[in-house]
C-alpha cells in the first residue's frame, strides 16, 4: 500500500501500466515492482523448476523472482527484472513460467514430484529406454524448461555501442561514489560517475539518516548539482559497469530507452567500452537472505528492500510486518516502518544477547522455523527459548547481513578474501591494478565510513594520476555498529514442506547442497554445476555465500578453505544485440560498391558478395529465364564478339623505388628485375612455408615503378605480407608500396572485337605490333589519362583499361553502349568463371592455402638463380612428388552430366571412403564453348593420369558419375587467340 508523505516519486505524474492483463496506476519514478507492491500485488511469478508461487524479493538488479516479460511493438523481452524496469504510460508486462496464470499454474505439479527432482536428478534419470530420450524426454524437458519466451521475430530495434575515455571511472553513486567523484572532480580530473540505477544516491535514497545535517536525498541533490556544473565530470545513470578488462578497459551497459515507450532512432541500450586510467569501485553491498524453512513465499522480502520501498517509493509491502535479522543495522527497517505508521508485529533476532529495546516486540535468540500462505505470506512460526508460536504477518523482512559487491575486483582472475568479523567476502587488496574499492563494496558498513573511504579512494587515484588533491571535508553521518552474528540456515525438521531455499532463481535448497557434498561433489565448482546454484540470471548474488557456508559445514571445512567460484564478466546480463550493435544484416561488414554498380543494377544484374564487394553475377536479357541462359550467351559473346567486365576489385599495389625490382624478385618466385618497361608478367607468390599465397600479374610502368595486382580476396593479405617482408627483412631498401585498388576503375574488354572497340574510345589506336600480348602503357581515353594492359583472363584477345575512378561509371556506360552495337555487352561473374575455366586459369578456389607451386604445375616458376620467400620451405620432403594431389581438368563422360565443386574423386571399383580418397573438385562450370560441364580438380599424381577415368562422388548433392582426367586447359591450348 502507498504511504502518504513518503517516497521520492513524482506524485504529480500518474502513470498507467498493465500487468498480466490488468490495468494499474503508479507514479513517475516507480519501478514495476514498487508500483505492483503499492497496488497490493505480491504474486509475480513462478519459480523455475518447481513452479512455486513467488513474489518480489529485493529492490535491485539482483532480483531472482520477479522476472517478467515486457511487451512492446510486437516484441517480447523476457527475464526483465521488475525491480529495475521503470514504468511508463502504456507499459505492458506479464509474469513468466506459468500456465495458464500465475495464480493457477498447471506445472506446479512439479512441486509434488520434488523428492524425485532434487539436484542432479537429470543425471540419474531419463536414460531408459534409450529410444525415449530423443522422442519423448528431451522434447518434454525442452518445453517445460526455460524461463520466459521470445516473440520469434527479428529484433529490429536500434542499439548502440560507444567508446569513452576518462582519468577516473567511479562505479556506483552512493555515499562512497559521490565523495570520490566530488573529490576528483574538484581536482580537475576527467571523471565518469556511473550508476546502474536511474537515480544517483545509492542507499541514501533508501535510508532516513542525515548527511552533513541534511536529509540524505537532499545532500545527494546538492552534490549532483555541483557535479553537473563541472565540465570535466560526466554523469551516467542507468549504466551498469559489467566487466573489468585489460589495460584499464571497462565494459558497461547503459539502458538508454527502456524506461520510455519506443520512439524512432532511440537506442534501447548502449554498450560502452570505457578506458579509465584509474577507477573507484563503490558498488555497495547486497543483502543476503536467511535459509529457513519455507522462506520463499510471496511477501518474504529483504529488509533493506522493504526499507527502500518505504523511503524511496512510499510503499509499505505489507500491513503487519515482521523482521527476521541478525544485525543491528537491520533494525532501521522496523524503526522506519513504525515511524511511518506501519504496524510491525515482531522482530525476531537470532542473536541471544541482542537488544530487545524497540517500539515493538523483540524476540532475542529466536528463529523463524516455518511459514504459511501459499500464494502470499499469512503467518510465520517462531522458535524462542524452547517454545514455538505463530505470528500473523503479511510481510517478513529478512536479513542475513550484507555481501560487499566484490565481483569486478575478481574479473581478472583474483578471488575475494573472507573477513570473519563481517562474515563476508571483501576485495583482495590490489586485485586489479588501478581499481580501488571503497565503501560497502570494501566492507565499510556505516555511512560515515563510506563517505571517508570514497574520498580517500579518490585521493589515491589522484596521486596515481599525478594531480594535486583538493581539500574535501567529510560531512557528518551515522557511524553505527553492524553487529553481525552469522546465521546461514535454520535447520528444519526435514520433509518436503519445510525446504530451506538458497537459490530462489534455480530452486536450489540446503538439502540439495548437502546432497552434492554427500555424493562427493565437494568442490565449490562441482557443487555449483551439480546443483545449479549460482547459475541463474542473478548469478548467485542472493545465494553464493550461504550455499558456500552450507557446503563448508557439510564437508567439515571453514568458509575461506571452501572458497568461491570464479567471477566472470558480465556482472549483469548484457543483450547480444547491444554488444553487436550495428552489426545486424548489412551492417555486419562494410559494403563495397563498384563504380559500375548503378549501371549493372539498371540492367537487372543480380549481385553477389565477393569478399565485401558487390559484383554482378550475370546480365539477364529479355527472354532469359535462368542464370544458365545468360551465362551461356555471355560466354559466347566474349568468344565471338566482345564483352565488358568490371575487374576493379582486384588488388592493385603501386611499388616504387630504386630497390623495387629487387623487392619483387624477393617476393615472387620468378624474376621481375628482367621485365622490360611497358610489359606485364604473371607472378607466383609463396608464403614462407612454401605454399602458394597468391598469383597475379605485375606491370612495369617505369624503371623504378611497378604495379602489382592481386586476387580480390587476397588484396589485404598480400599488402600485409609485403609490408612485413619490407619492414622485417629489407631494412634500408628504397622501396615504397601503396595500395591503389580504389584509385582506378578497371574494365576487361575481351573478345575478337575488343581492339576495335577500344580503338573507338582511345585517343590513339592500339597497334598490335607495338602493343603485343602482355604489353602495358599509358593511353588517353576521351581525353583522360588512363592505363592499358593487354592481359586476358578469358583466353580471348583481351585488354584491361584503367581510368581514375571518378570516370569509372561514365567509361563503363560508354563501353557497354559501344559493345552492344557490335553484338557484345557486359558479362558477369558466372561467365567470367566459365571463360577462365575453359582456359585452365586458377583462382583461390584452387590456391586455397594448402597447395604448392608443384601441385599446380608451376614448380619451374621458382627461379633457381635467386632466393625468394617460400623457396627453402617449398623444397621440403612431402611437398613435391607423385603422392601429391596435382591440378587436373575433368570432363564428364556424358554430355548433360554436372560436376560439383567439393565432390571427391575415387578410382572406379574402389570403395567410396576416406582411405581410398584420390582428390577433390575445386571449380566447375557449364562450358558453352565445349557443350558440357568442365571442372578443375586436385588428383593424386594427377599429371600422370591423363585419359584415366575417375569416379566423382558428391553425397550432398547426389552426384556420382565418371569423368575423364585431362589437361586443365580445355580451349585453345596454344593460346593463339591471346596473341592476335
Amino acid at each position, binding site marked *: 500500500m502507498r504511504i502518504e508523505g513518503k517516497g521520492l516519486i513524482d506524485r504529480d505524474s500518474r502513470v498507467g501500466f498493465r500487468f498480466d492483463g490488468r490495468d494499474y496506476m503508479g507514479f513517475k519514478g516507480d519501478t514495476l515492482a514498487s508500483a505492483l507492491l503499492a497496488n497490493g500485488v505480491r504474486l509475480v511469478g513462478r519459480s523455475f523448476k518447481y513452479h512455486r508461487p513467488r513474489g518480489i524479493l529485493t529492490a535491485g538488479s539482483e532480483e531472482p523472482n520477479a522476472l517478467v516479460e515486457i511487451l512492446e511493438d510486437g516484441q517480447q523481452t523476457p527475464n526483465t527484472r521488475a525491480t529495475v524496469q521503470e514504468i511508463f504510460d502504456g507499459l505492458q508486462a506479464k509474469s513468466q513460467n506459468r500456465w495458464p496464470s500465475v495464480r493457477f499454474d498447471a506445472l506446479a505439479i512439479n512441486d509434488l514430484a520434488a523428492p524425485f527432482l532434487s539436484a542432479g536428478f537429470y543425471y540419474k534419470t531419463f536414460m531408459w529406454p534409450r529410444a525415449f530420450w530423443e522422442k519423448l524426454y528431451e522434447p518434454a524437458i525442452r518445453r517445460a524448461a526455460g524461463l520466459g519466451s521470445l516473440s520469434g521475430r527479428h529484433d529490429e530495434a536500434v542499439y548502440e*555501442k560507444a567508446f569513452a575515455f576518462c582519468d577516473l571511472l567511479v562505479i556506483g553513486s552512493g555515499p562512497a561514489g559521490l565523495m570520490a567523484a566530488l573529490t576528483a572532480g574538484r581536482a580537475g580530473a576527467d571523471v565518469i560517475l556511473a550508476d546502474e540505477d536511474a537515480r544517483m544516491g545509492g542507499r541514501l535514497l533508501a535510508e532516513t539518516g542525515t548527511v552533513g545535517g541534511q536529509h540524505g536525498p537532499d545532500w545527494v541533490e546538492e552534490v549532483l548539482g555541483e557535479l553537473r556544473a563541472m565540465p570535466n565530470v560526466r554523469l551516467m545513470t542507468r549504466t551498469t559497469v559489467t566487466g573489468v578488462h585489460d589495460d584499464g578497459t571497462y565494459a558497461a551497459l547503459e539502458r538508454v530507452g527502456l524506461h520510455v515507450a519506443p520512439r524512432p532512432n532511440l537506442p534501447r541500450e548502449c554498450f560502452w*567500452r570505457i578506458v579509465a586510467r584509474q577507477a573507484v569501485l563503490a558498488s555497495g553491498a547486497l543483502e543476503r537472505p536467511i535459509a529457513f524453512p519455507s522462506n520463499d513465499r510471496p511477501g518474504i522480502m529483504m529488509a533493506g528492500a522493504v526499507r527502500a520501498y518505504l523511503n524511496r517509493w512510499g510503499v509499505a509491502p505489507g500491513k503487519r510486518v515482521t523482521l527476521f535479522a541478525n544485525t543491528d543495522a537491520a533494525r532501521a527497517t522496523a524503526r522506519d516502518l513504525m515511524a511511518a505508521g506501519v504496524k510491525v508485529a515482531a522482530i525476531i533476532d537470532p542473536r541471544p544477547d541482542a537488544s530487545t529495546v524497540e517500539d515493538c516486540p523483540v524476540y532475542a535468540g529466536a528463529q523463524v522455523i516455518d511459514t504459511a500462505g501459499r500464494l502470499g505470506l499469512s503467518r510465520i512460526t517462531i522458535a524462542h527459548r524452547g517454545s514455538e508460536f505463530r505470528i500473523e504477518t503479511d510481510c517478513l523482512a529478512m536479513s542475513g547481513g550484507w555481501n560487499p559487491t566484490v565481483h569486478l575486483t575478481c574479473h581478472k582472475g583474483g578471488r575475494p578474501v573472507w573477513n570473519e568479523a563481517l562474515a563476508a567476502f571483501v576485495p583482495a587488496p590490489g586485485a586489479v591494478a588501478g581499481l580501488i574499492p571503497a565503501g560497502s563494496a570494501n566492507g565499510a558498513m556505516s555511512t560515515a565510513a563510506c563517505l571517508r573511504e570514497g574520498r580517500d579512494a579518490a585521493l589515491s587515484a589522484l596521486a596515481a594520476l599525478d594531480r594535486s588533491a583538493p581539500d574535501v571535508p567529510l560531512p557528518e553521518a551515522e557511524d553505527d555498529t553492524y553487529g553481525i552474528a552469522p546465521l546461514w540456515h535454520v535447520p528444519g525438521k526435514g520433509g518436503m514442506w519445510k525446504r530451506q531455499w538458497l537459490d530462489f532463481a534455480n530452486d536450489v535448497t540446503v538439502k540439495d547442497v548437502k546432497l552434492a557434498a554427500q555424493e562427493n561433489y565437494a568442490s565449490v565448482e562441482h557443487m555449483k554445476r551439480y546443483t545449479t546454484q549460482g547459475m541463474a540470471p542473478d548469478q548467485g548474488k542472493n545465494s553464493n555465500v550461504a550455499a558456500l557456508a552450507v557446503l563448508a559445514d557439510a564437508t567439515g571445512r571453514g568458509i575461506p578453505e571452501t572458497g568461491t567460484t570464479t567471477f566472470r564478466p558480465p556482472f549483469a546480463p548484457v543483450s547480444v544485440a547491444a554488444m553487436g550493435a550495428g552489426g545486424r544484416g548489412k551492417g555486419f561488414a*562494410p559494403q563495397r560498391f563498384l563504380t559500375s554498380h548503378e549501371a549493372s543494377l539498371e540492367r537487372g544484374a543480380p549481385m553477389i558478395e565477393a569478399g565485401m564487394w558487390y559484383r554482378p553475377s550475370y546480365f539477364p536479357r529479355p527472354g532469359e529465364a535462368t542464370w544458365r541462359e545468360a551465362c551461356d550467351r555471355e560466354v559466347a559473346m566474349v568468344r565471338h564478339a566482345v564483352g565488358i567486365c568490371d575487374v576493379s576489385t582486384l588488388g592493385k599495389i603501386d611499388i616504387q623505388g630504386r630497390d623495387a625490382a629487387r623487392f619483387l624478385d624477393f617476393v615472387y618466385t620468378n624474376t621481375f628485375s628482367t621485365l622490360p618497361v611497358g610489359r606485364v608478367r604473371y607472378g607466383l607468390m609463396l608464403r614462407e612455408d612454401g605454399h602458394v599465397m597468391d598469383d597475379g600479374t605485375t606491370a612495369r610502368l617505369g624503371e623504378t615503378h611497378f604495379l602489382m595486382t592481386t586476387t580480390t580476396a587476397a588484396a589485404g593479405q598480400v599488402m600485409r605480407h609485403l609490408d612485413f617482408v619490407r619492414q622485417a627483412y629489407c631494412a634500408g631498401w*628504397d622501396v*615504397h608500396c601503396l595500395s*591503389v585498388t*580504389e584509385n*582506378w576503375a578497371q574494365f576487361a574488354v575481351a573478345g575478337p572485337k575488343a581492339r576495335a572497340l577500344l580503338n573507338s574510345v582511345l585517343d590513339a589506336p592500339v597497334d598490335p605490333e607495338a602493343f603485343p600480348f602482355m604489353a602495358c602503357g599509358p593511353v588517353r581515353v576521351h581525353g*583522360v589519362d588512363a592505363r592499358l594492359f593487354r592481359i586476358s583472363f578469358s583466353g580471348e584477345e583481351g585488354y584491361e583499361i584503367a581510368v*581514375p575512378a571518378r570516370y569509372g561509371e561514365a567509361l563503363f556506360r560508354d563501353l557497354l553502349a559501344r559493345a552492344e552495337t557490335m553484338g557484345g555487352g557486359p558479362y558477369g561473374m558466372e561467365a567470367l568463371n566459365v571463360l577462365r575455366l575453359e582456359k585452365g586459369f586458377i583462382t583461390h578456389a584452387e590456391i586455397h592455402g594448402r597447395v604448392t607451386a608443384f601441385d599446380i604445375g608451376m614448380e619451374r616458376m621458382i627461379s633457381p638463380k635467386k632466393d625468394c620467400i617460400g623457396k627453402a620451405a617449398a623444397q621440403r620432403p612431402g611437398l613435391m612428388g607423385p603422392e601429391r594431389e596435382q591440378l587436373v581438368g575433368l570432363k564428364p563422360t556424358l554430355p548433360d552430366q554436372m560436376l560439383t565443386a567439393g565432390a571427391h574423386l575415387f578410382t572406379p571399383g574402389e570403395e567410396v571412403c576416406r582411405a581410398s580418397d584420390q582428390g577433390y573438385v575445386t571449380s566447375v562450370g557449364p562450358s558453352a564453348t565445349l557443350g558440357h560441364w568442365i571442372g578443375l580438380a586436385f588428383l593424386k599424381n594427377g599429371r600422370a593420369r591423363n585419359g584415366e577415368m575417375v569416379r566423382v562422388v558428391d553425397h550432398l548433392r547426389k552426384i556420382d558419375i565418371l569423368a575423364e582426367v585431362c589437361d586443365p586447359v580445355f580451349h585453345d591450348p596454344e593460346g593463339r587467340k591471346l596473341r592476335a
Partner: protein
Amino acid sequence: MPSLIAKTPLEGTWPVTHGGLTLAEVELTRVTSVSAPKVGRDLAAGLKALGVSFPKPNQFTGFDAVRMVWTSMDQAFMIGGDPSGLSGAVMTDQSDGWACLRLEGAGADQALMRLVPLDLRRDAFPPGAAARAPLNHMQMILMRLEPDCFELLVFRSMARTAWHEIEEAMKSLAARAGLV
C-alpha cells in the same frame, strides 16, 4: 570529342542534419601520397611553396587550399595542391581512391566516438590533430579542423557504408537529446 563525366564517391547525396550535427561530402580534387624516409631541402622547399610542411605523426599542416596529413611512417597525403613541382620523394596519385566526409556541429566528437575507438575529446584530439584509425570496421584518415568540425577520408567503395553509419550515430544522439 566526347568527354567522360566525373563523379564523386557520393555524387548526388545532399548534406544531412540531425540534432545540430551536419554531415556532408567534400569533393576531393587531388590527393597525392608523398613518401620520403628523409625530408630533404628540395622536398621541404617544394612543400613550403605550396603552403604546407611535412607533418609529424598524428597531425596535419596547412588547412584549406592545400593540406598535408600524416598517414604512415615517412608518408603523408597532400590534399589539394599540384605535386608536379615536388622532388625528393616517391609520389603516388590517390585522388580517386578516397571519399571525404565532413561532420560538424556541437558534439561531433561524441558522434564519432560511437564508431572510432579513440579519445576524440577536445583536449585529447585538438584542432590540427590527425589519426589513422578505424571508422567502425573501415580504414580511415581523421582530421580535426576546428573544435566542432572533423573531416575524414575513407575508401571510395565504402563511402556509402561510412555515410550510413555516421548518420545512424547522429540520429541516435539526436533521439537521446530528445529524452528529458
